């Protein structure tokens, strides 16, 4: 819980990791390249005092995670989003099992463990996925469509195999589908960051929630285009929110446009820990306001809007109990664009 100026904010960190990218676990140059890329994001967008040495960034401890999230980071609940990268790391980069072990070691902390599926495992993989869901009582999955598997450089959410897995999610009550786009996909000649496949899936599965991580950046216009049409599409702010420090005007535009196009009820906070730390992100976000010269177009972020983004919206998706007295004052959605947007291209 974060408190400031008499207001209490229930914090759900919607995007956290417990990874192992140590040299011993790196399977090849791609594993090395991947963590170095993360580290550049970390160094580039964090306040200086929050930058870790590379060695710690490659592999941090459970104690680090508990401390950074819960002891100093104000987090009430943290959602683990696994990223397997089995072709890059011997034991995987960040698997469901690794996350679940942390949660089991710390029953006093509120974790939500999400799983993952990879449709390229086809029918055979479906049974293993079902077991994973039952074993950890999963309510959500994190899907990385740029994941490499042998010669494959990725997959799409609207493929027949992916549809089969989404049907399974629906059947098993796995309601929250977090989608993360990366630089590769199949086929490689298409734009890997395009979110059109999320549009298809969201239309076919209206009972599932599709949370597009990084709010579709760097394709914000494509994301807003689909999210205005599909009420079950949400924006995850991981990777977008650290710009609050280095480029606050850019961040103001992102969050302002999201509030305008999809509304304050469909935006979720996420630190992407350990790339960034919730403590400074939460503090800065609560203090943040859209610059005055942009307010006529983008409006302002009220305390209620901030409360929703920092925790209440995710709490609603995951049925988390919110302590009395910390809810938003208003429950009406405001600011969302009601009519169809204009096609850009």
């Amino acid at each position, binding site marked *: 819980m974060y408190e400031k100026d008499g207001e209490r904010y229930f914090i759900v960190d919607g995007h956290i990791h417990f990874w192992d990218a140590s040299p011993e676990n790196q399977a090849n*140059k*791609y594993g090395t*390249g*991947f963590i*170095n*890329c993360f580290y*550049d*994001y970390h*160094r*580039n967008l964090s306040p200086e005092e929050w930058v870790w040495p590379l060695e710690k960034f490659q592999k941090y401890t459970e104690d680090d995670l508990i401390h950074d999230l819960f002891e100093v980071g104000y987090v009430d609940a943290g959602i683990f989003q696994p990223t397997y990268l089995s072709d890059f790391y011997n034991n995987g980069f960040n698997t469901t099992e690794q996350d679940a072990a942390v949660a089991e070691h710390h029953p006093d902390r509120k974790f939500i463990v999400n799983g993952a599926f990879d449709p390229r495992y086809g029918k055979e993989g479906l049974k293993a996925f079902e077991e994973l869901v039952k074993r950890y009582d999963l309510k959500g999955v994190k899907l990385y469509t740029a994941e490499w598997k042998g*010669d*494959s*450089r990725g997959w799409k959410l609207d493929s027949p195999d992916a549809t089969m897995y989404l049907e399974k999610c629906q059947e098993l009550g796995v309601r929250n589908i977090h989608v993360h786009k*990366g*630089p*590769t996909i*199949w*086929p*490689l*000649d*298409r*734009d*890997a*960051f395009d979110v059109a496949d999320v549009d298809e899936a969201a239309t076919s599965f209206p009972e599932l929630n599709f949370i597009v991580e990084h709010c579709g*950046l*760097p*394709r*914000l*216009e494509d994301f*807003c285009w689909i999210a205005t049409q599909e009420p079950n599409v949400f924006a995850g702010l991981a990777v977008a929110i650290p*710009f609050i420090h*280095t*480029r606050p005007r*850019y961040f103001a*535009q*992102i969050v302002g*446009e999201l509030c305008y*196009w999809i509304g304050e009820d469909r935006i979720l906070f996420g630190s992407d820990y350990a790339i960034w730390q919730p403590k400074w992100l939460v503090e800065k976000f609560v203090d943040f306001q859209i610059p005055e010269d942009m307010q006529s177009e983008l409006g302002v972020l009220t305390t209620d809007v901030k409360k929703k983004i920092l925790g209440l919206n995710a709490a609603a998706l995951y049925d988390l109990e919110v302590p009395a007295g910390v809810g938003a004052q208003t429950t009406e959605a405001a600011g969302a664009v009601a009519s169809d*947007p*204009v096609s*850009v*291209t």
Partner: protein
Amino acid sequence: MTTTAQVLDALSGVRDPELDESLTDLRFVAGVEVDGSSVEVRLRLPTYFCAPNFTYLMVSDADAAVRALSGVEEVSVLLEDHFASEEINDAVGAGARFAEAFPGQARGDLDGLRQLFQRKAFVARQGRVCDSLLRAGVTAQAVAAMHVADLPDGHDSERCLALRAELGLDARGDAPAFLRPDGGALDAATLPRWLRVARLVRLSLEGNGGLCRSLLQTRYGIEDPEEAAA
């Protein structure tokens, strides 16, 4: 004899298709070496995992731009520190197509991708001109009624017209000043809404460009007090 300056000038005409900015402005050119009629260009990118399709386009466009210089006979464009450096360098060096660089992983070539991002760039460039007109007090009605010949002088207008040529859109003086990327018209009623979307496209392009610049600085330890202060 070809000079380094001529090579850099040729490279300044090559854009990152995703960001709509030139390779030299983005500081993606790591080095140029000229030896008689043979030229070697080294390129670098903000991350190891930059998307291979856009990367291929930049390397092959750079290769073509340098090859077009008179007096140049041998060209070698080498992408450094990228997960697919080898595949892309080999393919471009051999004049092979994208799909040949990544056998089995691509369905075709990159014309469709290039055109999609030309359209996005067209929306963003026009949005910039449009916004500055509105800020200067011109009404949406007047903006929608403008023709190419009425466009304000300047870099942004020129860049809009240059892209019209690439997209096969009418760039004559009596053509509408602002068009949808498919050539469709905008009127006073639809302009504000179109502009709002154009701002999103700009936000994606310009925001991504800013991130790429700063990641490149971090990755290669480039000191740049001017950019750091921006």
